[in-house]
């Protein structure tokens, strides 16, 4: 079975984000990492590969720096590495079309990715790719297995979780999984270093450039928080709760 895992490289969630001239300064990002939910997708893909004797294809779309993440994926067991080389920021449709085309070209039976990437936290890619592939889609799963020609996954429900089955080509987006992520080892790293990354230009996929439908106007630092306020007694608790809800948006 050919298993595709879609990976996105993002600034490490601990990295500082610096804005200069109305734009995030990517050069100042101290560490780029695989987006955390994608790590669970990769782990699940590796398990599925081991159970079915399949081939795991790691795919990413982005600039040159993203190749490092593919090598990291190879160090834990990804078999084939595909880099769609694109320096520009693409809109969701463009990215999904590129990924779906590569998936179609590789006779893939199942696609795994994170439920959202840690940069925009959007969560559009998995469902969007599923739609283009005309595939079944289950989001926010914690585990997936394959048996008797169908995929069994576990997703949250109103009352807890539910097991759902899909057949045919299926796309799963991962929440934090149950299993521990595997660590690379020196042997894996040495093998990964030798692995060839297949680089594809968007033009080679026959996808013409759309006109820019999304134009970035500015990136900013978040609004400064107000200085702390201390209240004597419990009288202001309703105000605090309403501020937390309506201004801070944290409850």
């Amino acid at each position, binding site marked *: 079975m050919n298993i595709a895992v879609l990976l996105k490289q993002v600034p490490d969630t601990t990295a500082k984000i610096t804005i200069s001239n109305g734009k995030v300064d990517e050069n100042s990002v*101290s560490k780029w990492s695989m987006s955390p939910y994608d790590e669970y997708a990769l782990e699940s893909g590796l398990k599925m590969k081991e159970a079915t004797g399949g081939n795991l294809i790691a795919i990413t779309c982005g600039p040159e720096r993203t190749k*490092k993440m593919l090598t990291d994926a190879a160090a834990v067991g990804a078999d084939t590495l595909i880099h769609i080389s694109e320096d520009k920021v693409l809109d969701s449709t463009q990215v999904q079309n590129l990924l779906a085309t590569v998936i179609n070209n590789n006779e893939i039976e199942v696609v795994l990715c994170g439920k959202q990437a840690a940069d925009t936290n959007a969560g559009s890619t998995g469902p969007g790719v599923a739609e283009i592939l005309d595939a079944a889609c289950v989001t926010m799963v914690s585990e997936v297995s394959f048996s008797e020609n169908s995929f069994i996954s576990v997703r949250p429900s109103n009352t807890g979780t539910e097991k759902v089955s899909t057949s045919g080509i299926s796309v799963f987006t991962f929440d934090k999984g149950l299993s521990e992520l595997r*660590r*690379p*080892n*020196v042997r894996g*790293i040495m093998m990964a*270093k030798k692995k060839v990354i297949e680089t594809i230009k968007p033009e080679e996929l026959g996808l013409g450039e759309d006109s820019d439908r999304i134009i970035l106007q500015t990136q900013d630092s978040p609004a400064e928080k107000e200085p702390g306020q201390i209240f004597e007694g419990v009288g202001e608790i309703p105000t605090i709760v309403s501020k937390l809800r309506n201004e801070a948006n944290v409850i």
Partner: protein
Amino acid sequence: MDYEALDFYEVDSLLSDEERMVRDMVRDWVDEEVIPNIENACREGIFPDEWRVALGEMGVLGAPLKGYDCPGLSYTAYGVICRELERGDSGLRSFASVQGSLAMYPIWDFGSEEQKMHYLPKMASGEWIGCFGLTEPDYGSNPGDMITKAEEMEDHYILNGAKMWITNGTMADLAVVWAKLDGVIRGFIVEKNDPGFSAPEMKGKHSLKASVTSELVFQDCKIPKDRILPGVKGLRGPFSCLNNARFGISWGAIGAAQACFYSAKDYALSRIQFDHPIASYQLVQNKLSWMLREITKAQLLAYHLGQKKDDGKWIPEHISLAKMNNVDIALEIARVARDIHGANGILDEYPVMRHMANLESVKTYEGTHDIHNLILGRHITGIQSFTREI
């Protein structure tokens, strides 16, 4: 706060991709498994067995050795591994140094083909632990006058004597022991169940508490004939092991220093006295700036030494300089970091006093600070000053 390793001159950007991947692997493991558990290990005085297993699984033991299922990494990668381990704890790095440089290396370099095939794969995987018996109760800096001796019998050797300050001793499956056979220093492999061999643990250390330190006692210890290391005679054997271990220490000490700097900086920025963070005071800034200066110099020294080691263009005195300097500044940085932490610095909530106490051992073992000075003195002047006979 997530660990940010001080790397002011971006020396790590000179590493190969593979070396950086190994660094990240070890660093993540230290973050997730070592740092949350180290204080407990120190309090109980144990080296957690999970760490042995994990080091074997990561495949970092005997890092620069090639073949026999050993990792086959560069010496620079070995240095990086030591640095990341010692950022966690010097006792952890000691475990890896002893296993790789002092136990696996002599078998790899001086052992017979059978010995290499038998021991090295299981040592690289962490299944078997090794230790290294050179120092004796009365012979530390002067190992040439060791008392432990071996006698050749018809189909075996008999060892008699005692070794002291042996890292991993009590937990080891095998010991590489240096003893005099007809007055010449030779290496022997002693296994834990050999008759007449025991390895009682030394208790009461104020340093390297998460590392096992032992005596090795040989009372008519009988070992088979095929346990002698055929490839080396004299002090060159143990000294070549020590060169590799000292190389690792010169990197490891930087890890401890980085940990102390990181903790001191974080503490100074968050500790408010006289209405301002203490980091805003000049005396504290002077300390932090000095720490950064010394760490940066040590990093450049270690990196360049790693390149020389990988190119084979090194002399033991290069290693002496790096071991001596980097441990010296790391210890002083740990002391200054403890000072910046004020009274909080003596608590085990912060790593600084543990590193400080550990580094006192590191300054002394594997050639004391002063002995390395004498090695350099001899190199400069051509006159040895270890003994009175000039």
